[in-house]
């Protein structure tokens, strides 16, 4: 099949070869992909985009395999994008996520695609979001993106997914490596996989304690905003005095060091539904046996429902799209600056700064003015 044979109609009609080829064109950043992507723009928007992220070996691919099975059982068509790093030395890659999902290979309601990062800076995020839009327009109900790590990955999963599942496992050392500060707040649903191993409950407790602290400090803005809104939907005890005393005693027990398990919930129960006392769910799973998978899917779907019911789905997507537009615009500006005569302008400005004729900030101002004329 030729690239030129790929069309929006073929993708929409469920032609897997056309869909697969379009994703290759996206990966190659083929300009000819744009006409098809534009034609597909009218469709889609209904897919639930789920990011699965966590350290290598945590069981993300095994979990994804089980999630696919469970979602298929619920009658949903599922697409998976599995991202693995390219070798920085050879540019090659071994993409092995699929091994764990091959039983779905011949299921027509499942599409699985492995993507290599190809050493792009930010480029894969664009490719991945374009691929998600294609799969959405092709009629998949759920699109799952598996990415390695957080902060180690070229895919900014938070910018693409509606729901982010952060996977951790026991035995990674004293602190929860996957859930370090700044990373934790991207999780909408927390999964402690390999619960068959020693130490799983401790990981759950540590995650909960971190989430509770973060929520109390108002640090975890991404999820606390949602949980605030979600809690507002539920009938809540809103007596300010109750809530304040609950928060105070909670703060005290946190300050006092190790908090007894369940203390948070005990205190939270005094002010049911109070937004600042809501934390995201933490689910234990054994991906290899399927234990906990139904619960995990339930939490993922509850999150989706909460997003939709509170209007957060739209505002999250809007924020992500605005971010993506900014990225896209910056890329265009950069490539415009790299074209011949503008490159010369930059060289001239650089010389002027080196010779101390103007300073760096004058040079930037000049450049910005010049840009608005293009």
């Amino acid at each position: 099949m030729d690239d030129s044979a790929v069309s929006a109609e073929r993708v929409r009609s469920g032609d897997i070869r056309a869909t697969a080829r379009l994703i290759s064109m996206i990966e190659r950043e083929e300009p000819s992909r744009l006409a098809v992507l534009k034609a597909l723009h009218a469709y889609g928007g209904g897919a639930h985009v789920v990011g699965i992220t966590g350290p290598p070996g945590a069981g993300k691919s095994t979990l994804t395999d089980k999630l696919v099975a469970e979602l298929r059982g619920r009658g949903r068509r599922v697409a998976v994008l599995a991202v693995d790093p390219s070798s920085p030395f050879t540019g090659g890659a071994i993409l092995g996520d699929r091994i764990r999902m091959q039983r779905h290979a011949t299921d027509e309601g499942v599409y699985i695609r492995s993507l290599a990062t190809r050493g792009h800076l930010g480029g894969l995020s664009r490719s991945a979001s374009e691929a998600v839009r294609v799969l959405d327009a092709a009629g998949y109900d759920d699109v799952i993106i598996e990415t390695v790590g957080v902060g180690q990955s070229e895919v900014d999963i938070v910018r693409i997914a509606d729901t982010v599942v952060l996977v951790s496992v026991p035995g990674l050392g004293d602190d929860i490596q996957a859930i370090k500060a700044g990373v934790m707040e991207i999780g909408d649903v927390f999964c402690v996989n390999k619960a068959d191993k020693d130490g799983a409950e401790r990981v759950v407790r540590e995650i909960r304690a971190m989430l509770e602290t973060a929520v109390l400090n108002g640090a975890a803005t991404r999820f606390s905003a949602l949980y605030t809104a979600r809690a507002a939907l539920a009938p809540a005890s809103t007596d300010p005095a109750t809530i304040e005393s609950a928060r105070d005693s909670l703060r005290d027990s946190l300050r006092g060091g190790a908090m007894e398990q369940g203390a948070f919930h005990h205190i939270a129960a005094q002010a049911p539904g109070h937004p600042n006392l809501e934390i995201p769910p933490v689910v234990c799973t054994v991906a290899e046996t399927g234990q906990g998978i139904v619960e995990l899917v339930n939490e993922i779907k509850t999150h989706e429902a909460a997003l939709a019911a509170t209007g957060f789905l739209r505002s999250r997507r809007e924020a992500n799209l605005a971010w993506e537009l900014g990225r896209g615009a910056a890329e265009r500006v950069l490539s415009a600056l790299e074209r011949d005569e503008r490159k010369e302008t930059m060289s001239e400005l650089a010389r002027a700064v080196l010779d101390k004729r103007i300073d760096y900030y004058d040079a930037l101002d000049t450049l910005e003015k010049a840009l608005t004329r293009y």
Partner: protein
Amino acid sequence: MERKIRVLVAKPGLDGHDRGAKVIARSLRDAGMEVIYTGLRQTPEQIVSASVQEDVDVIAMSILSGAHNHLFPRVMELLKDKGVDDVLVVGGGVIPDEDIPGLKAAGIAAVFTPGSATTDIIEFIKNNLKRRE
């Protein structure tokens, strides 16, 4: 952007170890290719579906169990059914010389037996891709 060669490496049949396939997978990666590794005991149906979903340029199959005369042509037949005619298919493993002409007639572009150098496989793939930019 530079055209990446995508290869599906698969082990059809029932034999239970994939050391050889993994060696090939690593050599292909080191030659700059993207290798989608699908693991052991793949049916021809799984191999062909995965190759379509992954939009690969090459399918490389390795087999030790002796079922090559059945499984390799079956893969070619399924590809044909799906209208796929632009994927290069190569085979390897323990395959007697007298079986090779039949496999080639079925559409397997090359057969690499245990003595083959991985550099030969890489060269063959690079020189015989059915898709060009």
